[in-house]
């Protein structure tokens, strides 16, 4: 039972890491390797809001989400705008920016046990004989809300329509009057905001360290690839597969094998069905 519940929470956490990443990739084709850095940076924004500006809880949260979205937006216009279309340069740019952010935070002394966020909800409940802290329920809830909300947003709003248009064909989208750079930067902003929401939910479970950024990036990649880059239900399935896979491995072989699960899953999926479990119609394009 506990395996089931904790597995679910781990899976949702992983899906939360991946949603923002896959949104950006799906819409604008940019593999945003600064995703992990943006995630942890938003955590530090909250911390600063709480401890330096002494803002109330909800205000620092929303401030952090806003700031992170703005960061993603400006990242697009300052950096990515200039190198669009050169995949090597795009990748190096985002990765280097991410590392620069993370290393700067390390240098500025943003590590150590002082950096820990208080949980949104304190206390714990017992569900089916398993003790669960409320914060983990928050993770669960925000995961569900985000995935459903994103699905609705993409399918039932005008901006969402533009997102899908750009994802399908950038040139056609251009020809019918969708400014691809605007939509691309909006997707960066939204992707970053989503990663900030994920940070709000997940980070209070532990303490903050810049190195988390690298880890989040790897998990985001793993989930996104397993589920199929750019597909929202794929995120959920990918998260579930990796989350439960890890827990079952831990139970059967011992916890030090856990980290092998996402990595070998990526290798397997890429070897067998590279577009991922839910990847659509990329087969021709990727020559598989």
């Amino acid at each position, binding site marked *: 039972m506990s395996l089931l519940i904790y597995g679910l929470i781990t899976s949702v956490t992983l899906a939360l890491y991946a949603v923002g990443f896959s949104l950006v990739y799906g819409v604008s084709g940019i*593999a945003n390797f600064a995703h992990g850095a943006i995630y942890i940076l938003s955590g530090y924004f909250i911390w600063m809001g709480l401890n330096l500006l002494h803002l109330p809880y909800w205000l620092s949260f929303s401030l952090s989400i806003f700031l992170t979205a703005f960061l993603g937006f400006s990242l697009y216009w300052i*950096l990515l705008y*200039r*190198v669009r279309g*050169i*995949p*090597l*340069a795009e*990748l*190096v*740019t985002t*990765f*280097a*920016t991410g*590392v*620069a*952010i993370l*290393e*700067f935070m*390390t*240098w500025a002394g943003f590590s150590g046990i002082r950096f820990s966020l208080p949980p949104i909800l304190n206390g714990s409940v017992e569900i089916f004989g398993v003790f669960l802290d409320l914060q983990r329920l928050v993770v669960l809830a925000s995961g569900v809300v985000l995935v459903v909300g994103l699905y609705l947003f993409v399918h039932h709003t005008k901006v969402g329509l533009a997102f899908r248009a750009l994802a399908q064909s950038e040139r056609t989208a251009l020809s019918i009057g969708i400014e691809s750079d605007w939509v691309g930067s909006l997707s960066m902003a939204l992707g970053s905001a989503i990663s900030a929401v994920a940070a709000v939910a997940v980070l209070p479970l532990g303490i903050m360290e810049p190195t988390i950024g690298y880890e989040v990036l*790897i998990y985001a*990649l*793993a989930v996104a*690839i397993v589920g199929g880059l750019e597909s929202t239900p794929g995120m959920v399935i990918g998260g579930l597969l990796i989350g439960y896979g890890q827990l079952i491995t831990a139970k059967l072989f011992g916890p*030090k*094998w856990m*980290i*092998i699960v996402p*990595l*070998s899953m*990526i*290798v397997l999926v*890429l*070897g067998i069905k*590279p577009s991922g479990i839910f990847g659509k119609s990329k087969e021709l394009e*990727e*020559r*598989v």
Partner: protein
Amino acid sequence: MEKRLRKKRLDRGVKARTDTIFMVASFKDITYLLSPRVLPVLFFLVIPPFLGPYSEKVFFHACVYGLLALSFDFLASCGLFSLGQSLFFGIGCYFVGIYDHFLGLPIYLSIPFSSLSTGLLCAALLSPVVRLRGVYFAMITLMLPMLLMRLIEATGVMGGTHGMPGITGFPNEILGLYLGIVSFLFFLFFLRKLMGSDYGLVLKAIKEDDRCVMSSAINIYWYKAQAVFIGASIGGFAGAITTHHFQFIGMSSFALDYSILPLAATALGGQGGFAGAALGSMILVPLSEVLRELGGLRMALYCLILVASILALPEGIFHFLSRQYSQFYTEAEVD
């Protein structure tokens, strides 16, 4: 109306004359032609004895990263965008462990053996996935070294997390450095020649339009596997000489640094043509050592410099310089 000017590019006479025809030219022309080829080689061969022990290591590192960057650039020109130079590097290191530590082979056998074994093993490992293109191939090569690293951690083979000290070193350090330099230069010119040959033409064509190549009844997967073999052998060679130089094998041979730095070097120097990759690594490695002075800001600044240079010169330094070299500008009036 205001007179507007535009830049007009013209090929320099020297270049135009000698692209295809060889003829005795003036001393000035010969100097102009030879200097970019000969001067760096001379520089490489002459400078090592003047370096201190620390700078020797930096120089050695620059050559090792240079080899990895060449291997990256080579694979990239075949349409295989690899993020996993550390895969080749690490496997090369561990093969040295096997040959040197377990089989007790002498150093002049263990280096070639481990590079070739690396090439074979990686070609075998990656052959199921050479059909992938673009970002997918990049992801899988990024993940494989991490997977191997974790496997070594979990199973504890070959020293596990602790690694294995006490690998045979080079008889003296300057010899190791020269081996690095000579092999770096050799592979640089070898790959340039290779890509110019008919064989290289096929590889380049695979990158440009693989279906077209397929329709000429060429098995592109077989060619790609061969390309992986060549690229991985070079990476494995870099790993092998590093291991013998530092006399130590550890899990960290699979570290991300060995994938990212060659990539960054190529992005900085300019992709395609190998000289850019070589130039990039010769700039980046010493730069990262200079930045050590700054302590923790080092990596951050390093990345910022990288981003800035990519934004300013997206095509890479080398392509910029080679244009300056072979062309000149005049101002022409815009009609």
